[in-house]
């Protein structure tokens, strides 16, 4: 069941578009904002609400990089693996992150605190390498900075 808050947030978007199916991406983001990820059940509920088939909506959900169809940790670390960051030390950063968290790309730490994911160019190329933790962009990140950055996310 979609919560009242979720339904209101989704419905508020509908008048902005010519067809209500157009808000489905926003709707998935709304659900994710409240629950962290999009479960099969949530997908089913959103599809019903927007008069789409579950398959139609799942085709959309699985297409976009930032819709999570599996549970994720409390905080998401997005590490830019595109060319400018690659040139400026992405490799060492990734290695240190994996080592420090004990997970590979795409995995969640055993305590459920962090999920580590690759992301395409964050548009911070003049301050590469860059990572995002939740909604915060961190620039010019050296492996030695990671402890201080991660400390802020409990």
């Amino acid at each position, binding site marked *: 069941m979609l919560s009242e808050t979720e339904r209101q947030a989704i419905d508020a978007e509908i008048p*902005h*578009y*010519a*067809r209500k*199916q*157009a*808000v*489905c*991406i*926003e709707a*998935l*983001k709304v659900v994710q904002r409240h629950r962290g990820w999009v479960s099969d059940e949530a997908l089913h509920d959103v599809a019903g609400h927007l008069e789409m088939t579950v398959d139609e909506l799942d*085709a*959309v959900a699985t*297409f*976009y*990089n*930032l*819709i999570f169809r599996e549970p994720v940790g409390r905080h998401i670390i*997005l590490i830019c*693996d*595109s*060319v*400018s960051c*690659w*040139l*400026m030390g992405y490799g060492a950063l990734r290695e240190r992150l994996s080592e420090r968290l004990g997970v590979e790309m795409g995995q969640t730490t055993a305590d459920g605190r962090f999920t580590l994911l690759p*992301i*395409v*160019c*964050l*548009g*911070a*190329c*003049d*301050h*590469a390498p860059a990572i*995002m933790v939740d*909604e915060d*962009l961190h620039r010019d990140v050296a492996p030695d900075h990671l402890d201080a950055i991660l400390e802020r996310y409990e």
Partner: protein
Amino acid sequence: MPGETPLTGRIRPDRPPLDAVGYEQAGGYQALRKALGSLTPAEVTQQVRSSTLRGRGGAGFATGQKWSFVPMGEDAPRPRYLVVNADEMEPGTFKDRLLLEGDPHQMVEGAIIAAYAVQASVAYIFLRWAYRVAARRLEKAIAEAYERGYLGRNILGSGYDLDMHLHVSAGRYMCGEETGLLNALEGKRANPRSKPPYPQTSGLWGKPTVVNNVETLCCVPHIVNNGADWFKGLSRTPNGGTKLYGASGRVRRPGLWELPMGTPIRELLEEHAGGMREGYRFRGLLPGGASTDFLGEQHLDVAMDFDTVQKVGSRMGTGTMIILDDRSCPVGMTRNLTHFFAQESCGWCTPCWGGLRWCEQMLSEMEEGRGREEYLDRLAAHAGMLGPGHTYCALAPGAMEPLQSALTLFREDFERHIRERRCPWRSP
């Protein structure tokens, strides 16, 4: 006059952007008043056409001409849409972020004028999720524009109505492609559409739609205020205006600079980016994002504009250069670029989803010392098979630009990887 910086003049990196009142005090929304008060939509389009403004998203299509393809008049289809492409996911590109975060009202004003020119009734800003600061500032700017009568019903008493909505994407490179973007706005996978019909006649929900890049739209208020000849005069070449140029990689001062269109690459690299960092030598560069051909030392005196860079076999693209230094492996860099394109391919066309993965595979094997002699020819063959004309959109052809130019420019490095069965840049 060269030396002017109309697009970035109001931006102070250490301060939040101007709000609506501050923007008005700095001359903002004057162009909108002028357009709505004294110019017909056709006159606005004509002025932009005369200015020689070309799309700053990378393709360089003439903006005024694009607008002129929208059917107008009593019998023309309605509603019409204006879409701002603020997806900026081209690797190595970070110019629109500055404009969105630094002066959101400038973009909003440009979008309203563009929408007026094609008589659109709804405008969407398609923004990538990762630009969180830009999202907050745009939301605020849109709300202020409504409050002050620049959006909504009967704008400034002109009888013209326009609504503007911010759409925050869930992330995928394909959304930057204009027809993929339209599918994403409709709540679908961002697969490209077959062209023709072009979006100007059949776009969002089948209605006439213009899609313009952020930097392009930011030029519009200045053209309306100061005229087409002024805009042309900003440039050092026949491609009018200023350009936001940037550099990333091992240069002394990576960054962004608004300079006359046609500023030579060497000047960008040496004067503005400060040359290479101590201990690094220049090997090559991608002039404007991941999907442009590598240029080398011999191209440094080329003027950075659409026509001139094209003449030497690459594209200006977004104008934000990525510099390859001598301590980074050209094969590794090409592998990284190809990985990006293979991952972001939407899978709609066979050459793209199959071919890019194969290219990535060969490059990975090469870098890991398992490359075979025949890979060089096979990669070169892909550059043809995935080139223009074989796919719905420009993703695969764009991916082939750095690949085929790397095979030429860094031939010896590729051969060395195969011959020595290792990457010379990796410690043994």
